[in-house]
C-alpha cells in the first residue's frame, strides 16, 4: 500500500522568506488531497519538495514509510503533471508517454500494454504519432496525464493542471480527472488556487495561507465548519459575509438589528460574524433573526440573484444574499433572515472559530 507523509516540513529561502512552515500532512492510498490557497501560500513549493525538485530545509517526506529527502526525483517513483504540461516538443505523443518507462528499462511489451490502457481511458489513440505542437490545449493536457498514469507511481502530483484550459473545457476535464483518479489507488496531491476544483475533486482538502496549514479536512467539513476566518473567506463562492461586530449585552448589533450571541462567545468584547450569502434568505414564519435594508446592487447569476444590501442604521454595513431567481421582493426596505444555525463566529484577534 502506498502512502505519502509530510513531517514538520519546512522550506526557507532566507530568514525572512519561509514559504512553508512546519507542515504535517498525511495522504493514504485512494486519497485525493488538494492543496488550496491564494498565490504565494507555498502550495507549489510543497509539491516541488515532494517531487524532489526543491531541497527540503527541515522535516521529512516519507513515501511508503521511506524517507526520500536525500533521493533525486527519478528515484522517488512519483509522477507529476505540470501546469504548462511540459511535453517534450521534439517527441511524438507516444514517445512522450513512453519516455519515462523506457528509461526504467521496462520490457517493450509491458510499455505497449500500459500505453494502450492509458490511451483508451484518455482517448489518445488517434493522436499517438503527432507532435505536441499539433495538439489542442485539452489534448496536451490528456497526454500529460497519460504520461503520469502509465508510470503507475507511488504518488501523483498535479500542479494546477487545469488552469491553462478555457472555462468550458476545464469543467469537462475536471470531471474526467475525478473518474480517472478514482480508478487507481496511489495517493494524489493536487495543487490549485481554484476552490471549486478543490471542493469537487478531493477526498481531503488542505487550505494553506502564508506557509501555514489553516485547515485540513473533507471538502464538506471545510465548507460547513471553517476553522478560522481565513478559511471561511477563502472557501465558498460568493464569499462569506464577514462582519466585525461589538457585543452589547449578550447580543451583537447589525445596524439597528440585534443578533443573538451564542454562549461560547459571550466572553468576547468584539467578534467576527460570518454567514454565507446562500444562507441569508427571505424571511419565513418563525424567523427571529432578521435585518432590513435597501438593496443597491443585484447581480444575476442565472440560477439566483446575488443581492447586496445596505443595512438600516449603518451606512457602511453591507450584507450579500443569494436569492432564488423566481422569488419576488422589493429593493426598498427588504427584510432578510439570518438563520442562527448558519452563522459562524470567529475571534477578532486570532480569527479562530468559536464553537
Amino acid at each position, binding site marked *: 500500500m502506498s502512502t505519502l507523509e509530510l513531517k514538520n516540513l519546512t522550506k526557507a529561502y532566507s530568514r525572512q522568506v519561509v514559504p512553508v512552515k512546519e507542515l504535517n500532512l498525511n495522504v493514504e492510498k485512494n486519497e485525493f488531497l488538494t492543496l488550496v490557497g491564494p498565490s504565494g501560500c507555498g502550495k507549489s513549493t510543497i509539491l516541488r519538495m515532494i517531487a524532489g525538485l526543491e531541497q527540503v530545509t527541515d522535516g521529512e517526506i516519507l513515501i511508503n514509510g521511506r524517507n526520500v529527502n536525500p533521493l533525486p*526525483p527519478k528515484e522517488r517513483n512519483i509522477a*507529476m503533471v505540470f501546469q504548462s504540461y*511540459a511535453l517534450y516538443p521534439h517527441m511524438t505523443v507516444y514517445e512522450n508517454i513512453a519516455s519515462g518507462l523506457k528509461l526504467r528499462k521496462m520490457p517493450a511489451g509491458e510499455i505497449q500494454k500500459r500505453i494502450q490502457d492509458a490511451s483508451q481511458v484518455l482517448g489518445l489513440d488517434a493522436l499517438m504519432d503527432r507532435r505536441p505542437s499539433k495538439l489542442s490545449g485539452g489534448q496536451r493536457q490528456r497526454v500529460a496525464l497519460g504520461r503520469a498514469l502509465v508510470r503507475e507511481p507511488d504518488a501523483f502530483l498535479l500542479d494546477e493542471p487545469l488552469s491553462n484550459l478555457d472555462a468550458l473545457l476545464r469543467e469537462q476535464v475536471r470531471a474526467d480527472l475525478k473518474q480517472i483518479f478514482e480508478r487507481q489507488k496511489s495517493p494524489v496531491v493536487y495543487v490549485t488556487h481554484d476552490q471549486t476544483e478543490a471542493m469537487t475533486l478531493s477526498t481531503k482538502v488542505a487550505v494553506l495561507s502564508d506557509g501555514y496549514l489553516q485547515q485540513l479536512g473533507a471538502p464538506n467539513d471545510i465548507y460547513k465548519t471553517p476553522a478560522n476566518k481565513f478559511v471561511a473567506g477563502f472557501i465558498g463562492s460568493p464569499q462569506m459575509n464577514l462582519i466585525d461586530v461589538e457585543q452589547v449585552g449578550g447580543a451583537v448589533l447589525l445596524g439597528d438589528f440585534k443578533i443573538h450571541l451564542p454562549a461560547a462567545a459571550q466572553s468576547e468584547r468584539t467578534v467576527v460574524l460570518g454567514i454565507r450569502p446562500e444562507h441569508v434568505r427571505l424571511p419565513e414564519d418563525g424567523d427571529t433573526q432578521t435585518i432590513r435594508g435597501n438593496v443597491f446592487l443585484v447581480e444575476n447569476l442565472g440560477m439566483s440573484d446575488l443581492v447586496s444590501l445596505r443595512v438600516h442604521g449603518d451606512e457602511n454595513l453591507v450584507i450579500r444574499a443569494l436569492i432564488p431567481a423566481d422569488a419576488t421582493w422589493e429593493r426598498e426596505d427588504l427584510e432578510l433572515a439570518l438563520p442562527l444555525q448558519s452563522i459562524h463566529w470567529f475571534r477578532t484577534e486570532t480569527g479562530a472559530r468559536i464553537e
Partner: protein
Amino acid sequence: MTTTQPSTTPPASEAQGNRIPWQRLALWATVIFTVFFSLGPPIWELLTSIKTNAAITADSVVYLPAFDQFTAEHYIQLFTRNRFHIYILNSLFVAIVSTVLCLGIGSPAAYALARLQIPGERIVLTGVMGVTLFPYILLFLGLLRLVQFAGLANNYLALIIPYTAINMPLTILVMRSFFQQLPKDLEDSAKVDGYNVVQMLWQIILPMTLPALVTTGILAFIFAWNEFIFALTFITRESMKTIPVAAAQLGGTSLFEVPYGPLAAATIIGTLPLVLLVLFFQRKIVQGLTAGSVKG
C-alpha cells in the same frame, strides 16, 4: 457606367483592369533592383571565373561570354598549379575545429549562466560583453607577442584559439537567451520522468537547442572561414595557409599581370561552402534567429 442592361463583366472589375497597378510594379521594380544590386559583384565574379583570359581583358567589355569564351581553365589552374585543395582543407579544419570548440565550451557556459543562480552573474556577463567592445585589430599586436611567446607560429592552434575566443561572447549571449526561453518545467518534468542530468541535456535540451546551435555555429564558422589578418600573420608556411590568404597571394607570371580569372575562381570556391551551408540550414537559421522574439 450607368447602364441598365445586365453586363457580362461587372463594371467594377472593368475599371480595375484599365488601371495600371503602380503599386505592384513599384514593388517588383524595387525587388529586382535590390537583387541585382546585392548580387551584382558575386555574379560578376562568377562570370569572370568562367571567361577566357581574352574575354576578360577584351576592349569592349564582355558581360555574358559567348559559347566559345567559356572555359574552366582558371579552376583547373587553381587545383593544379596553386594546389587550392590544400588551402580548402586547411580552412575547413581551422573553421570546423574552432566552431565545434566554440559551441562545446560556450553552450554549457551559457546554460549555466541561464539556469544557475550564480553570484556575480552580472559581472560575468558584463565581462563577456566587454570583450566584444575591443576592435579586434587592436588585439592583433598583443596576440602576435603571445603567439611568439608560446611558439605557436605556423601552428593551427594560433588560429583556432583566437577564433574560438573571438566568437565566444556571441555564442554565450545568443545561447544564454535561448536557454532562458526554454521552459523550466520541461527540465523538471524530465527529472521526474527519470532522466539523469546527462540524459536530460542530451535527449531533451539538445534537440530543442539545435536551431540556436546551428545559427551561432554558422556565424562562428563564417568568421573563421573569412578571417584574414591572423591567418596572414601567424601562418607563413605555404602548406598551412587558409583560403583568404592563398587567394590574396595569387600572383601572375609577371609582376604586372593581375590574374583576374584565377582570383575570381578562388573567390567563388571560397564562397561556395558558405552558400551551401546557409542554404542547407536555412530553416534552422530562421528558427534560431527568431527564437525568443516569438513564443513557440
